[in-house]
């Protein structure tokens, strides 16, 4: 898994300045993790992007008072929707992996049922991938990365 960049903060650093710095880094990590995320053959990619979306959402919530209210709500909503779409793809990925491991420990007579459930989850995974593809397109159309950077700039500029 891609490790989040360590961001040094100082106790006396202004809250709004830390907000700007951290949101820029976490937003960059989110969009850097988008490459190949729709590839169901490499489930770590969607995992990395989901973790990045959680970290970004967390810092947006931690630093909420630093951002202009008029812009903040829409940006947070878009990040949440992207995180939900990543979850809809990731959850069946994890479940399928767990069932594979479980099946390996089962008596042969019990394996067909588990394989049947995996088939069902594959269909859910495909639906999740379609949802994610739509959401990635939406994020691009709505300029989410640029809006996040603008939010960081506004936090830093406000005095």
């Amino acid at each position, binding site marked *: 898994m891609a490790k989040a960049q360590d961001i040094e903060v100082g106790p*006396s650093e202004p*809250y*709004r300045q*830390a907000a700007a710095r951290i949101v820029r880094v976490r937003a960059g990590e989110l969009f850097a993790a988008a490459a190949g995320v729709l590839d169901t053959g490499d489930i770590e990619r969607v995992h990395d992007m989901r973790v990045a979306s959680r970290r970004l959402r*967390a810092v947006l919530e931690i630093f909420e008072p630093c951002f202009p209210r008029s812009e903040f709500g829409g940006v947070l909503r878009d990040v949440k929707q992207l995180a939900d779409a990543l979850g809809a793809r990731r959850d069946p990925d994890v479940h399928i992996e767990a069932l594979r491991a*479980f099946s390996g420990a089962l008596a042969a*007579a*019990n394996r067909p*049922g588990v394989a049947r459930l995996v088939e069902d989850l594959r269909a859910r995974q495909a639906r999740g991938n379609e949802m994610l593809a739509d959401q990635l397109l939406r994020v691009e159309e709505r300029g989410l990365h640029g809006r996040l950077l603008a939010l960081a700039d506004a936090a830093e500029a406000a005095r």
Partner: protein
Amino acid sequence: MKARRVKGLDPDGALADNAERIVLVRLEELCSFMPTAADPDQVVALHDMRIAAKRLRYILEVCGSCFGPYARTATRMARELQDLLGEIHDCDVQIPETAAFAERLQAADAAALRAAAGAAGDLDPALLEQAPHARDHAGIAALEVHLRARRLLLFDRFLELWASYERKGFRARLEYAIAERGVSIGTP
């Protein structure tokens, strides 16, 4: 679960002063789920406690360096708790999903057997061998048993983990670490 509102945050104030307010609210939020979440049937409280642990973990990950070495320990503890509650939550989601899947297979087989019986006065048990999912039921039943047993085991681990946090003074030590960061930042 909607996060509790943190009052008195000041964008122009020092990071540590604001982080202190947030950590204290998130810590109180987390601890408030006990003892309710110690009841294994309180699925919603357990889920909400996981979210509260996640929120505490994230504020500590971002700002923990303002509060000395115990904040790092507390970050690890919040993460461990979040992970364990997440495993329990996965069971709470997968148990009913697996049961629903079993029900679907059984309903499909029942319909297929009824059709196979045609005009017979009663259903011949030998027809069961022809059910489309005849070979699938055992594995799904085994999975459901496994998930239920795993949930019991993980819940016991959760109770042990929380008891160990209480023994170690998790809450008091984190509150102390935050209070001990010294005089308010910016005070000469």
